[in-house]
């Protein structure tokens, strides 16, 4: 691990202020650390080389509170474990609870925070291997995955037209997939003040700058994640397909939340994990189900086809296209069985 300086401020203003000091020439030279489970791993691998760590664990961001609109505010420093087992989350947002518990190990969930979960680096094996080319780790160096062992890589929203920007990495977060389905809102504080970012706009596709996983400006700190009132607590599921039963990243995952009126579908959210640089949603695919009755499995396949439209495989990961379609069909079947 490269040497760094360490500070541990006790208020948000000091934390954000300490970040801005050395922005100019090295934008990633200062990093916030909370649970540290991904950052320290990346530092040991020499992938991340911050020269200053700002430990935010003493900031007053460790509670889950009710919002006036009926939603919940998840403090950035509440651990993933405490969130998943929180009575209000289990009662009103069981999709989020189930999704968090499908990720990582119990030890990691005890360390990892809600804010930090959003910052798990979008990745593939070549991002972690400092002897390989990777446009995400070293912009312009090329992509080892595109013609390499790309089994875990993405099939949607990938960029492959220019060797200097090619990136087919996937975001590994389970929690973010549920947050996408729930349409959560990320609250941040930065040098320019406070702002909110819809989760759909928080993570980004690689575009021509795959080194950026999210749309935060330098020095911005996530303080909370707001959950809207609708938690889809009656009809939901998180289906995660992976190489072993527990403690593995998703090859493909599907978060589904549905609101029913009698037997008619009123609202539906479907988010995919393991397939793209960010959680993947497509409103047109969801719209196919609106107004339909729940017992029409023939529509599930159309929804799956619409969600996966434009999907592209790169050899070892081509199986993910069919796997994702079948996962969508299976997940919808699970959710609508709950209704019967």
């Amino acid at each position, binding site marked *: 691990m490269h040497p760094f300086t*360490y500070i541990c401020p006790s208020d948000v203003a000091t934390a954000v202020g300490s970040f801005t000091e050395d922005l100019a020439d090295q934008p990633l030279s200062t990093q916030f650390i909370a649970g540290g*489970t991904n950052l320290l791993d990346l530092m040991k691998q020499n992938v991340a080389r911050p020269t200053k760590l700002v430990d935010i664990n003493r900031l007053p961001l460790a509670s889950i509170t009710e919002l006036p609109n009926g939603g919940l505010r998840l403090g950035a420093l509440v651990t993933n474990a405490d969130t998943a087992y929180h009575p209000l989350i289990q009662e009103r947002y069981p999709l989020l609870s189930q999704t968090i518990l499908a990720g990582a190990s119990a030890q990691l969930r*005890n*360390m990892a925070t809600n804010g930090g979960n959003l910052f798990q680096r979008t990745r593939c094996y070549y991002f972690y291997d400092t002897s390989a080319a990777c446009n995400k780790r070293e912009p312009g160096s090329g992509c080892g995955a595109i013609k390499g062992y790309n089994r875990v890589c993405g099939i949607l929203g990938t960029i492959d037209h220019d060797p200097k920007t090619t990136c087919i990495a996937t975001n590994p977060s389970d929690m973010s997939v549920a947050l996408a389905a729930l349409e959560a809102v990320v609250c941040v504080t930065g040098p320019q003040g406070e702002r909110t970012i819809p989760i759909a706009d928080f993570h980004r596709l690689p575009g021509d700058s795959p080194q950026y996983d999210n749309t935060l400006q330098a020095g911005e700190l996530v303080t909370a994640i707001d959950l809207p009132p609708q938690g889809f607590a009656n009809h939901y599921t998180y289906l995660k397909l992976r190489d072993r*039963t527990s403690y593995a990243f998703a090859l493909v995952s599907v978060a589904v939340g549905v609101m029913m009126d009698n037997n008619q579908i009123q609202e539906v959210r479907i988010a995919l994990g393991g397939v793209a640089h960010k959680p993947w949603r497509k409103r047109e695919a969801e719209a196919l189900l609106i107004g339909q009755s729940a017992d029409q499995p023939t529509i599930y396949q159309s929804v799956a086809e619409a969600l996966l439209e434009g999907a592209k495989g790169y050899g070892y990961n081509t199986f993910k296209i069919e796997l994702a379609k079948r996962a969508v069909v299976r997940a919808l079947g699970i959710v609508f069985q709950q209704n019967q």
Partner: protein
Amino acid sequence: MISNMPLTPLPPSSITLTINGKAHTLDLAPWTTLLDALREYAHLTGTKKGCDHGQCGACTALIDGKRINTCLTLAIMHEGHQITTIEGLEDEPDKLHPMQQAFIDHDAFQCGYCTPGQICSAIGMLNEGHAKTEADIRELMSGNICRCGAYPHIVDAIHDVMHQTH
């Protein structure tokens, strides 16, 4: 690789960690992981370094009663916390913790390298109180890998203690 290093080495600072109820004042650089602090500075080598990347669970210890991977956290982040390692589980000298005894009774290890992490993790799991069945034990212990494959006996040992005490 060298280009990002500060020109002058940063001096280690004096950090006090409370390990198994005893204060240890150690001179540590900020980048010392808790695992390295335990093993190399406090000389408590019961906690093991396996993968050093949070994937195997051999380094599991308890912080304020909660199980974590000590390899993925910095020692400097744990001043003021109660750190419990495999060396500090006994309530009284020379008497094993029930989980340690159960691992012996059920022959729940072969080489033993993962065992301190397994035992600390199992105690942490029972503190959490979410495991009800053997399937729950398997799922909630998935962060602890046993390369010898002693899983059936590990599950038996934990199951035994779970029913004795909860």
